[in-house]
Each structure stands twice: as C-alpha cells, then as structure tokens.
C-alpha cells in the first residue's frame, strides 16, 4: 500500500523536526531538513514495504511534499491574517501587530533568498511574479 509509507514518512519528518529544534534554529533550515528527512524516509519505507507502482508512489509523495511544505510556511513564517485573528481579542492588538513587523521580516527573507538586493528587484523576483500571475490566470482565470 502506497499511502502507509507516505504517512509514516510525514510522521518521521515531524518527529525529527521536533528533535532537531533542540540543536538547530529550525526556522532557518526547516525546508532543507524536511526535504532531506522526507526523501530519505520515503526511500527507506519504499524498500521496506516493497512497493511495485513506483510512478504512483513518486506522484503521491511529491504532491504531498509540496502541500506539506506549503503548510509549513504558515507555521514557520507566520501568516499576518492568522496572527491578527489570534490577537484580535487583546486590547492593544494593533501595537502587537506592528511590533511583529511582517514587512521588515519579509524584506529580510527576500534579501536572503536573493529576490531583492538593496531595494532593487532581481531576475529571480521578476520570474517568480510572472510565474505566479501565469498560474493564477491559467488555473483560476483571475
């Protein structure tokens, strides 16, 4: 069964990330850690469970990996909407939101991932923007 090794791999990733947080700053290296652990564990479980449909297995594990990493960006990078929802009942929720400095945080992350350099836009950023627009037009027509 293809689904069992895939779920076991996801559990392995969560357990390893839980343990790694005591040794590394998982906020900085979570993607690399997830990629390595998920690939290795899938390879291991693929051997253990003797899976015949390799193509099915690759498609399902790859799509699950994309969905899982998209979800983890919410966990590690913070979503402003969800953060605002969480603090909405507090008195000075605007101040708390401002202190979080989402824009500054994203600008730093963009510099790290070379999407911008000294307020100038890079080719990578232009490509990301065009790809995002293209996909939303093709798949969602908006």
């Amino acid at each position, binding site marked *: 069964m293809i689904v069992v090794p895939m779920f076991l791999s996801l559990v392995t990733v969560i357990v390893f990330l*839980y343990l790694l947080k005591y040794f590394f700053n*998982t906020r900085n290296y979570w993607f690399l850690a997830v990629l390595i652990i998920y690939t290795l564990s899938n390879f291991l479980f693929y051997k253990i469970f003797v899976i015949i449909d390799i193509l099915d297995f690759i498609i*399902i594990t790859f799509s699950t990996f994309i969905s899982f990493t998209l979800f983890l960006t919410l966990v590690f990078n913070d979503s402003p*909407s969800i953060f*605002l*929802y969480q603090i909405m009942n507090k008195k000075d929720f605007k101040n708390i939101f401002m202190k979080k400095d989402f824009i500054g945080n994203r600008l730093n992350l963009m510099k790290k991932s070379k999407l911008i350099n000294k307020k100038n*836009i890079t080719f990578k950023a232009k490509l990301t923007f065009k790809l995002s627009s293209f996909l*939303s037009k093709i798949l969602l027509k908006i």
Partner: protein
Amino acid sequence: MSTVIVNYSIKKVKNKLFINILCFIFYFYFNYQDIENFLIILILYLNYIYIILNIFTTRYSSIRIKIIECLINKEKMIDNNWLFDDRKKRLAKTLNSKFTLKLMSTIIIIFRKVLIR
C-alpha cells in the same frame, strides 16, 4: 484539465467549486476499483486543491509578491499600517468562515509548539 475548462467557462466562484467537485465525484463513480485506489486519488485530489488554493493566495495575499509588484510598478512601498488595515478588512469580510480560521489557527499553534523552540 477539467478544472481549467470549468474555470474558463463558468463565472461564479460557487458554481466553479460545485462543478469541480461534481467532476471529481463522476470520475470516482466511473473509475472506482478498490478502497486503496480511492484513498490514493482522494489524497491526490486534496493535495491538488490545496496547491491551487495556495497559488491563488500567493498571487493575491503574499506580502513578498505585493512587495515585488510595488517595485515592478514603481508604486509606493507597502508598510505595516497598510498590511494591518488590509488584513483587518479581510477578516471583517470573512467572519462567516470563522470556523475555518479557528481550525487553521489551532492547527498552526499545535505545530508551532511541536516544531519551534
């Protein structure tokens, strides 16, 4: 493929969703083999929906994409005040789907407690 066709031929978002799900149910009805196959296609479909939703949210909610858009169009750069007002407006609009927000928020809090020190 059916998603692309449906999106180009139907205007209302609710109808788009309804027909997309209907296509998926029809596909299952005619291709059902066993429970394992059903589970695999269901997971693939849910992944697909989640990725599509993320493409939509990235284009229209991502701060990074908004910053890039400001730089490309040489508009005034967004700041935390703009972000606060924008998200506050959106939350006011989506109060009907409070359950979804609460669910997402709870799941994220649990994951954050487990994965971040």
